[in-house]
């Protein structure tokens, strides 16, 4: 009885807000996975995006500039990933770890040297993302709060999911991308540049993670906090696996993880200790790894 009471309008409203950053990052991870690159740097890319978003929005006083900065910042970090993992042939896992640590160190360093603050940066000059009220749907019970009143990035994430599905399975670019991932030598024989497609996938994942970061720092809240990605990039890596690198599957996984996060958020409102509710998304993500029996993959 108590449990059902949790599924109310505010839970419905927070579901997509929590699921979107994970979904955007996971779509990026999916593209890399399909191109045959294990991208565990999603966490760092997302963090770089969240910081750049606040920086852009603060400097230009517009959330659109924030989003543009977020994409540019995360793409720059993703290009570094590509340089070291693709061109210089570094181990993807080591490069990914280094990228995560670089992003976390850089954002903290810049937070101090640009804004002179530690821990968090909040300023009235930072413009958050606007929300959109969908006509007709907005007034509906439960469905209204679920689908309406979100930032443009949330709708963009759903569009990006559909676009990924189409490009991957209905377009020649997707076909070649999958070819590069499944059999690089064969792709090369057919004249497809493996390096170019891997760069493309990594840069696209940078752009998507930049959007994810912008949703975190300009959508869900309007500030930057050290390490505010808080493991969501890793949850996105799991979502790619759990969704079997399929856009629809990944969407479902992200909705599940987003639901867990919003449930945790709700329970905190009911006087549950925050440490226990905060653990919920990680525990569910771990549990999903048990449900999904991974095939033997290339390892480190």
């Amino acid at each position: 009885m108590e449990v059902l009471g949790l599924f109310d309008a505010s839970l419905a409203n927070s579901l997509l807000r929590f699921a979107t950053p994970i979904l955007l990052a996971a779509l990026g991870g999916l593209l890399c996975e399909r191109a045959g690159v294990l991208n565990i740097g999603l966490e760092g890319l997302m963090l770089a995006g969240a910081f750049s978003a606040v920086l852009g929005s603060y400097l230009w006083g517009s959330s659109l500039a924030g989003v543009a900065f977020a994409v540019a910042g995360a793409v720059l970090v993703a290009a570094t990933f590509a340089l070291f993992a693709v061109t210089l042939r570094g181990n993807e896992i080591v490069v990914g770890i280094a990228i995560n640590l670089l992003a976390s160190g850089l954002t903290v360093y810049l937070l101090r040297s640009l804004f002179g603050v530690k821990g968090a940066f909040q300023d009235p000059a930072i413009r958050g993302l606007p929300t959109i009220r969908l006509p007709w749907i907005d007034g509906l019970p439960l469905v209204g709060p679920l689908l309406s009143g979100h930032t443009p990035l949330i709708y963009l994430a759903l569009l990006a999911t559909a676009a990924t599905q189409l490009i991957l399975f209905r377009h020649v670019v997707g076909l070649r991308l999958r070819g590069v991932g499944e059999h690089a030598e064969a792709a090369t024989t057919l004249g497809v540049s493996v390096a170019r497609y891997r760069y493309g996938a990594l840069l696209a994942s940078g752009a998507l993670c930049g959007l994810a970061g912008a949703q975190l720092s300009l959508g869900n809240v309007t500030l930057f906090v050290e390490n505010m990605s808080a493991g969501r990039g890793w949850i996105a890596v799991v979502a790619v696996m759990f969704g079997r690198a399929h856009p629809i599957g990944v969407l479902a996984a992200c909705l599940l993880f987003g639901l867990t996060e919003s449930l945790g958020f709700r329970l905190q409102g009911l006087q549950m200790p925050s440490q226990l509710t905060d653990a919920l998304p990680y525990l569910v993500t771990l549990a999903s790894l048990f449900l999904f029996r991974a095939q033997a993959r290339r390892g480190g």
Partner: protein
Amino acid sequence: MSRRAGLSVELSAPLLAVGAALLLGAAFIAATGHDPLAAYGALVNGALGGRSGVWATLTRATPIVGMGLATAVAFRAGFFNLGGEGQLVLGGLASALVALALPGGGALTILLAIATAMVAGGLWAASAAWSQDRFGVPLLLSTLLMNYPARLLASYLVNHRLRDVESGLPQTERIAPAVRLGELGVGSRLHVGALIILVAVIAAAFVIRRTRVGYRIRMTGLNARFARAGGVDVPRLGLGVMFGSGALAGLVGAIQVLGVHHRFIDGSLTQPLWAWTGLMVALLSGSRPLGVLAAGVFFAAVQTGGFAMERATAVPRELSRVLQALIILLVAAQESFRSLLRWRPRAGRSA
């Protein structure tokens, strides 16, 4: 196979990475409006100038080398343990609980606290290895994700159940002086824990180089399929190696709690990023115990120097985190460096 010639190539790659990272860092310092030479000068001076700098570096090196060793033991066998943070926290928490429960036990309590910490960290890590073997859960992801529940559990306990109400802070009560690790009396806070870690490094180097288990670890790390064909029970080895790795992390937690903080303080083991610095140290060292010692002291020096640099030049000390990450990024590409180095013909070297 000439070991010496191999060693010079082995060493030149990380050194090249460090050099290149320092250059990139200098460009970065200049780009954010500071003087790189002054910053690096203050950094070196702070880390190595005078006795206090050296002792501070060694005090800082203790948990870094310890966590580096914990990670390296697993890496060497090809197991990516990203869960050092959680194992460290659980070890620290366990040691504090034992020390608080048995304040009168003296040295016996210390031993028991350390043993409990090692078992706690070891079991947490080994459960990830078991899940990989039994359910195919990738170690890379499970170890990382398990950091969060471990941290949050410890945080919950010291915020609610075990809180020292008088202090008003999220921490346990102070442990009795008789069950603390003593300081070495050289000034600064260098304590017995540093010696324990030193012994652990030497022991690990011996085990990896000279024993049958060490041979299996090295062989599995180089090529797991080959090792399996050669009769190594890889899942069992993984279970043991991950237990050892987690136990070392737990040991570091106990050492910090019994030797430095004298209580478990929420965030005190995670905020200094011991586990992540240790992981970078393991990567820089190529997972060799003696290399971990050298790389760990080096990273500790960079961090200690960072504090001095911040005081002297207004360059934030977080620069050291950027430098460390750049070094690892460049190390990741060291195969390319190596082939560059090998490309030059060398006299008197046979392949």
